[in-house]
């Protein structure tokens, strides 16, 4: 009797699954999403993920919910590995930063950027190159004339360090990179005269510039920023460097192109919304940018090559 019941139950279940499978695919998304954040609650990547999630919910851009899940630690590797293991599952989203490339190149992570589907980039945080007002330096030319300068950075495999190295290559100024624990420490070191140059976040250094304690020399991005309209870009000053912090998102590999296109469109709507401008771009003085999945994939390749070259010079590439 019980065996009979079980067989019936199995048969019913089986036919049910058969009929349900195409229906699920047809109405993507039909389940809640998990947004895997590689930083802890309250950090930069967390704030971005939660802001995006709130805007999607407010504007009802998808019929289901997005749940933010923090998986901090291991320089992001914990989160990247977790997300990469969700292969073929279109209900996972993730944040990324420079460690997305560097940990794989150094051999500390088993997953690389190629194990993910690039989804979209929706902002770029510019860096503003600043020096202390007491240094007497007023322009990129003055700085280069110094011959040697100490650049503060938030670690050795970061955009700040990369920018310092690029600046040395393009201008001939000898740049020593002094790595600190965070942007705040770098700022304190700059104000105290322990380093010469910082590539700062506009929101964090703007008040120092207004108070006359720091002097902005250049923006590192393609365009000037609205809060510092008089500060020219490095390109305008004939230094061929363009690098900002891309705020981009990824999904696991092996997804249907239609599903990726669907989510990419959701992020496009976020990027175009006044809410995103008010809640993120304006608050962080970030530039509005939109890269779709294909363009972001190209950008990832460029960034990976850039990091590879940089790490090769530093002797940090994984031994083959």
């Amino acid at each position, binding site marked *: 009797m019980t065996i009979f019941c079980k067989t019936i139950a199995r048969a019913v279940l089986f036919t049910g699954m058969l009929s349900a499978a195409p229906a699920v695919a047809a109405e993507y998304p039909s389940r809640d999403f998990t947004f895997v954040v590689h930083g*802890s609650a309250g950090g930069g990547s967390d704030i971005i993920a939660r802001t995006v999630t709130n805007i999607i919910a407010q504007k009802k851009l998808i019929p289901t919910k997005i749940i933010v899940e923090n998986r901090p*630690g291991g320089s992001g590797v*914990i989160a990247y590995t977790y997300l990469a293991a969700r292969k073929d599952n279109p209900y996972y989203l993730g944040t990324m930063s420079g460690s997305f490339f560097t*940990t794989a190149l150094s051999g500390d992570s088993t997953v690389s950027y190629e194990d993910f589907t690039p989804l979209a980039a929706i902002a770029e945080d510019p860096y503003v190159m600043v020096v202390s007002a007491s240094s007497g330096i007023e322009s990129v030319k003055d700085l280069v004339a110094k011959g040697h300068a100490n650049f503060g950075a938030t670690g050795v495999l970061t955009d700040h360090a990369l920018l310092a190295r690029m600046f040395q290559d393009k201008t001939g100024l000898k740049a020593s990179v002094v790595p600190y*624990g965070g942007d705040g420490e770098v700022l304190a070191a700059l104000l105290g005269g322990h380093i010469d140059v910082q590539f700062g976040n506009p*929101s964090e250094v703007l*008040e120092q510039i207004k108070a006359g304690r720091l002097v902005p020399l250049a923006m590192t991005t393609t365009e000037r920023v609205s809060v510092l309209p008089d500060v020219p870009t490095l390109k305008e000053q004939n230094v061929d460097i363009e690098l900002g912090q891309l705020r981009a998102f990824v999904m696991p590999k092996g997804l249907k192109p239609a599903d990726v296109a669907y989510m990419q469109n959701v992020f496009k709507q976020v990027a175009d919304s006044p809410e995103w401008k008010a809640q993120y771009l304006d608050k962080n003085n970030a530039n509005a940018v939109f890269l779709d999945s294909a363009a972001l994939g190209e950008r990832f390749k460029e960034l990976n090559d850039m990091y590879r070259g940089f790490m090769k010079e530093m002797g940090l590439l994984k031994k083959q």
Partner: protein
Amino acid sequence: METLSLLLSGLSVAIGPSYLLATFSGVMLGLAVGVLPALGPSAAIAILLPVILNFDPLVAMAALAGTYYGAMYGGAVTSILLGIPGESAAMMTMLDGYPLARSGQAGRALGMSIFASFVGGLIALILFVAVSRQFAEFAIAFGPAEMTSLMIMSLCFTTVLGGDNKFKGFISLALGVWLGMVGIDIISGSTRYTLGMPNLLEGFEFTVVAIGVFGLGQILSALDQQSLGKLATPSYTFRSLFPRLADVLVCWKDLVVGSIIGFVVGVLPGAGATTSTIFAYAASKRMSKTPERFGKGAVEGVAAPEAANNAASYAAMIPLLTLGIPGSATTAVMMGGLLMLGLQPGPLLFTTRPDFVWPLIGTFYIGNIMLVVLTIVLTPLLAAMVFVAPRYLFPMICSVVLYGIYSINNSVFDMGVGLAFGVLGYLFDKLRYPAVPALLGLILGPILEQGIRRALISSQGDPMIFLERPISLTLLLLTLALFVLPAAKRLLWKRPSRPRTLETP
């Protein structure tokens, strides 16, 4: 005088009902997370941040700051009652607080920590209003070279922690410094001692190691003894649950000195609060006529570091409010909060927004008074924990701390790390090695190493940087004096060398 009137007007705003409620909620949350091992102030603030963004900036900041200094108050509780420091700044309090509690004076130790926190807070707040500007400039004058010398000095001070054997203390310290190297080296970018495990890339978290070594290690040692009944000292009385006001008079010197040290060192970025507790404890021991009581339950040994860490928690906000520089992980999260609230912390905040800054400082004063009242009422309740028999208490501690460890990074791996350090704590206990130097090494070692390397990078390899800078040179000379003077004294006066027997519990 103008400052005083600004402060008074700030206070009058701060006693408005919504600000009182915000301060109260903040300090309550802070106390709660401070009391729970493994949950630190920066975690609490990160949790609170998304909730409070919908409020008026002053309400939000009053609650955030309240959580921060409230946690500093609460941090002493687990140190004293359970011998488990929830965060590094509470570790020195444990040295004498825990022996006091074990000898049936839990209420007295907790009471002392409350009075000390109050006095530390009060002195720091007075100094805050008087000299915050000048102090902020002093803080940024502290570069890598100065930080290196300060760390050398504090590591030398850890020798005053004694132990029956200086050599064992040194081995423990060295082990801690080595453990501090695990993970990605931020200066070179290469990984050290990670055994290929991504979970170790960011190194060992203080809380996980401390809970393992002190909490679980102690439980393992207890299980080793024949009967758990031996542990419970039967001499607890109802009286022992209450604080003793008379202690404040006995310890007034330690309180004042601890507060000032806490304020001066706490303003420095990095490990200001922890370093200040080491200095305060060492100073207190030097001032004492009976230094041999330290480490065995000297009430001054609770007073000095507690006054220091609370003073430091206010001082740490000075660089944030006067210059817009976050000095610690916690104040970095607070700076994120200020930015999200649309306020730009920077050198101009005091001049452009006095209507925000002064009432905020007002809420600090009120929060400090609230905390003293709250904690005195709660002390007998908390101290009653000593009546819980080990066979009930230990399983409770085990589950709470393991969950706590898990909750830091949602990581089962961390629980394994905590357990492994529990075994290490047990071995330390069995072999009579002091564990505190290891934990200090874990915290201060990386700061020392990074200081040396940053200084040498910026001087392009010239070691004279440590001697050319006046603050750095002064600190190094003081450290040298610390060793040379006692030796010189002995030589000159030919006093019979009295063996100093200083034991850790």
